[in-house]
């Protein structure tokens, strides 16, 4: 009994299909993707620690970024702050030192989450107000 032309054509293709399927699985493997760590730099706000170090204790100190202000007590050396995400931030810093304090320095260190630290040393006699801008080249 002779086979129909369709059967005769399909039968030799069966082993080919059996081999082809696993081969296709191997060939179509997706390229390796390195595991990415969750990016902390997302969302509209940056969370940062603002640390201060003083040579002489101050009486009052305020830091303003945009419309938000943070006041430091004389015994405080760090505050968690939040500000609009971006590649630059401008801090308006006002300090008043007690009378008879000599010309003195105050070091500010900004440590944003997931972003490089930036620091600045501000000098003043009696009081000081300064605008400080920190920038990041490769950060959002």
């Amino acid at each position: 009994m002779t086979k129909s032309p369709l059967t005769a054509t399909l039968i030799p293709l069966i082993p080919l299909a059996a081999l082809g399927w696993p081969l296709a699985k191997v060939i179509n493997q997706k390229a390796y993707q390195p595991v990415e760590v969750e990016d902390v730099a997302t969302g509209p706000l940056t969370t940062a620690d603002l640390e201060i170090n003083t040579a002489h204790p101050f009486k009052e100190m305020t830091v303003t970024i945009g419309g938000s202000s943070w006041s430091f007590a004389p015994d405080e050396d760090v505050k968690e702050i939040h500000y609009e995400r971006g590649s630059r931030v401008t801090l308006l810093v006002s300090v008043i030192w007690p009378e008879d304090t000599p010309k003195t320095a105050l070091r500010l260190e900004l440590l944003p989450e997931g972003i490089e630290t930036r620091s600045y040393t501000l000098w003043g006699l009696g009081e000081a107000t300064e605008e400080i801008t920190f920038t990041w080249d490769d950060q959002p």
Partner: protein
Amino acid sequence: MKWFLFLFLGLTAHGLDVASLHPLITDAVKQVGGNRVSVVEVVKPGMNVHKFQPKASDIKKMAQARIIFASGKNLEPYLKGLKDNLQKHQSIVEVGRTIPSQKISKKDQIYACCPHHAVGGIDPHWWHNISNMERAIRVIEKELTKADPAGNTTYAANSKVARQRLDQLEAWAKGQIATIPRGKRHLVTAHAAFGYFCKAYGFKATFVQGLSADGEVSATQLAQSIQELRKEAIPMVFPEKTANPKVLQQIAKQTGAKVGKPLIADGSSKSYQAMIQSNVTHIVAGLK
């Protein structure tokens, strides 16, 4: 009932119970927590932090811990699974999460040892930059204070002391490194664990074996490394404690470099300070 409540909160008679998945984090938590905190060391110095997988017995050990401190940056790929096994009062804190990351680049001659440590991924060894450890201390202070607000003053004071010590350590390290002529600041190691160290302290880096302490090296990569080291007349290559020094010995033989004293990459030392001091001392002695 009161006892039960304390136990539930992870605040037992001896203080706050926490666990640590990295020996260097254990050291930092002990410094900040002082007597108020009891730390279960799940991963001890000398254990391979890249290969560690928690067993049922480890999860049992952590049962009382209110916080489980991990290094983060995907050094512990098992954290998701571990999270599923935790009780409601427990949380995992990835200490390195908010520390600026360094990506693994091709120019660092990275050998992709495993899916977590390949080109384009993030180098998990953030602790080799001392400033990063200062940030980690802050993170630990915040988390301990959140879990045990009554200990606020203790944690803040201990954190301040720890950060001051790190400042001193960094000043010392920078002073030591300054004695190496600029042109000679090229660190050649096997395991690519020193990327943060090299960036922070101005070293050119060659890592011949990738990020895993026991990764294998391709012949092409080895030949490239040998060619580069010959060209630069590197005086010394540094093996690593707990890693096989064979590849480095072979490279040293073919380039005429000496094999230096082993560096500590993943915290197989009694403290963070001891690790940094030992590494800096060996590097300076070898390259000066």
